[in-house]
């Protein structure tokens, strides 16, 4: 421990108080939300007199919730496939040889990540109408895919920049042309980054409300459905849906983090 500069000697207690206050601030709402999903009453709030699993069984029996969930997953998977393909391609292009305008291209690529969601959603909506694209699944996938490309580019470029030049030279030296060396050496090296970026894109898409709301047709995605249900009044059913979504996404996120960390360590 002593090899780290003790910047905060004596402030330990104060700092840990701040830390725990932060943890409470973040997790208490989530814990409350989870607890309320088990309350045997139509109204959210204390006191809780009796407990039930009814809301959960209700969620899993609700055809609308199940199909909406499937719809959201399908959108997440398809938009992620597009983002990863396009993002990896751009990353390889930008990280390769130096060429004129490379920095400008990089800027243009990552800029969309900084545009506020509501603004890009409205822009997409207007543009989609102009192009004659109907609101619905295709439009949502398109918007999600475009929005997620910068994250893929950043993650894949970071990994690509650590690929030793000698790896590609060795492949060429042993008889691989540029395409074969890309497929057999570069791509396997990028796998951890591509997987990490994919998980991130899946979660971003699954979680997205603004773009899905503006570009959606008659079928809602899960966040849009939760929003619609909220308008007809808070009920523990929403807590149950949210809890299931929370557990799923957290599990995927934690697994992906550990998995990519292990893969990065191995190579």
């Amino acid at each position, binding site marked *: 421990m002593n090899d780290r500069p003790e910047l905060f000697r004596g402030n330990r207690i104060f700092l840990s108080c701040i830390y725990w206050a932060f943890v409470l601030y973040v997790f208490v709402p989530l814990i409350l939300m989870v607890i309320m999903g088990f309350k045997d009453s139509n109204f959210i709030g204390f006191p809780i007199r009796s407990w039930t699993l009814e809301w959960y069984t209700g969620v899993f029996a609700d055809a609308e919730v199940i199909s909406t969930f499937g719809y959201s997953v399908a959108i997440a998977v398809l938009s992620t496939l597009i983002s990863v393909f396009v993002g990896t391609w751009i990353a390889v292009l930008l990280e390769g040889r130096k060429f004129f305008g490379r920095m400008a291209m990089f800027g243009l690529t990552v800029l969309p990540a900084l545009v506020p969601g509501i603004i890009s959603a409205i822009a997409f909506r207007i543009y989609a109408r102009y192009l004659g694209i109907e609101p619905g699944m295709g439009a949502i996938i398109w918007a999600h895919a475009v929005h997620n490309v910068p994250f893929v580019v950043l993650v894949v470029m970071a990994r690509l920049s650590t690929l*030793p030049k000698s790896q590609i*030279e*060795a492949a*060429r030296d*042993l008889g*691989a042309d540029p395409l074969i060396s890309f497929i057999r050496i570069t791509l396997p090296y990028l796998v951890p980054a591509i997987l990490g970026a994919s998980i991130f894109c899946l979660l971003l898409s699954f979680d997205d409300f603004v773009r899905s709301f503006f570009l959606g047709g008659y079928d809602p995605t899960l966040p849009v459905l939760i929003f619609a249900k909220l308008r007809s009044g808070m009920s523990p059913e929403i807590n149950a849906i949210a809890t299931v979504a929370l557990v799923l996404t957290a599990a995927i996120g934690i697994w992906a983090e550990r998995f990519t960390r292990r893969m990065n360590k191995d*190579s």
Partner: protein
Amino acid sequence: MTDQTPLARIEGLSKHFGATVALDNLTLDIAQGEFVTFLGPSGCGKSTTLRILGGFERPTKGRVILDGEDVTNQPPERRNVNMVFQDYALFPHMTVAQNISFGLELKGMGKADIKRRSDEIMSFLELDAYAGRYPVQLSGGQRQRVALARALAPDPALLLLDEPLGALDAKLRGQVQQELKSIQRRTHKTFFFVTHDQEEALTMSDRIVVMNAGRVEQDGTPEELYFRPASRFVAEFIGETNFLSGRVRGVEGDKVVMDWEGTTITGKAPATLPDAGTPVTASVRLEKLGFHDTRPETGNAVQGRVVGKTFLGSRMAMQIAVGDKGDAMLKAYVDAETGQAVGNEPVWIGWEADNMAVLND
């Protein structure tokens, strides 16, 4: 070798990086089965030559002929040349066996042939036990052997080695040097080795090309380079030596007689004979100097005082002050145990004319 045509020929090779001249009109033949070492400080052009031979750089001028074919503009994948990289460049996601098979697969070999060849090379280099391991699971020495096996597997006409021992610790390096030399002998392959380590070059090579600032400084056997350096640069770069700076008195046959620190000494003449009266430098190795109680009857001799000593284990390096004012220094090796005392009594230092090389600067 009945075949007198060289395996590889480098013709008038130049390489410029912007305003920097990395390689300046290099011409060289490499014979089949030779262990050639390119030796020089960093930036001398040795690595550039290697990369041009491998196909990773294109020369600004000149040609590379391999097996009678002009390969100057061929990409690396089309040349019958393989390379052992400085960082080994093993593919991390492939096992040892997969790494070694990679080049064979790309040669279009059948599965059975690939297996046979990679097994053969793995047992040759004693890697059998590691076939299923990944590079991260190997030690530095093992990785080095895998890199060598991978480069040898496709049976290249010429093997390029880019300072492949740099990453190994000193003890292992000595062992690997012997191993490399013996592998080269047993495979009869032509090795093109690049290093900045003169000791490495001396122990392994049949022939050493000393490079300096993009040009060949001297090209010869290790013995020639060590005992008959052509220039001050070579004498300084290879081994440790005494430089004696004086003035030319005259030339006698293949010997140069020069004035040095109030005495006259004789050494072997360089390629270009110096004019009388010009300043000149001669080089004599530390182990060629001997201590005498009286002036030796033959050869060069000078009187001096032993002013210091350095214990080196197997021997002792003595510092001797010579000359009228005692400000010229010589260094000589003596036996570490019997030694030579440090003191004020004058001693005679002698060496044969044949053991001193007069240099062209």
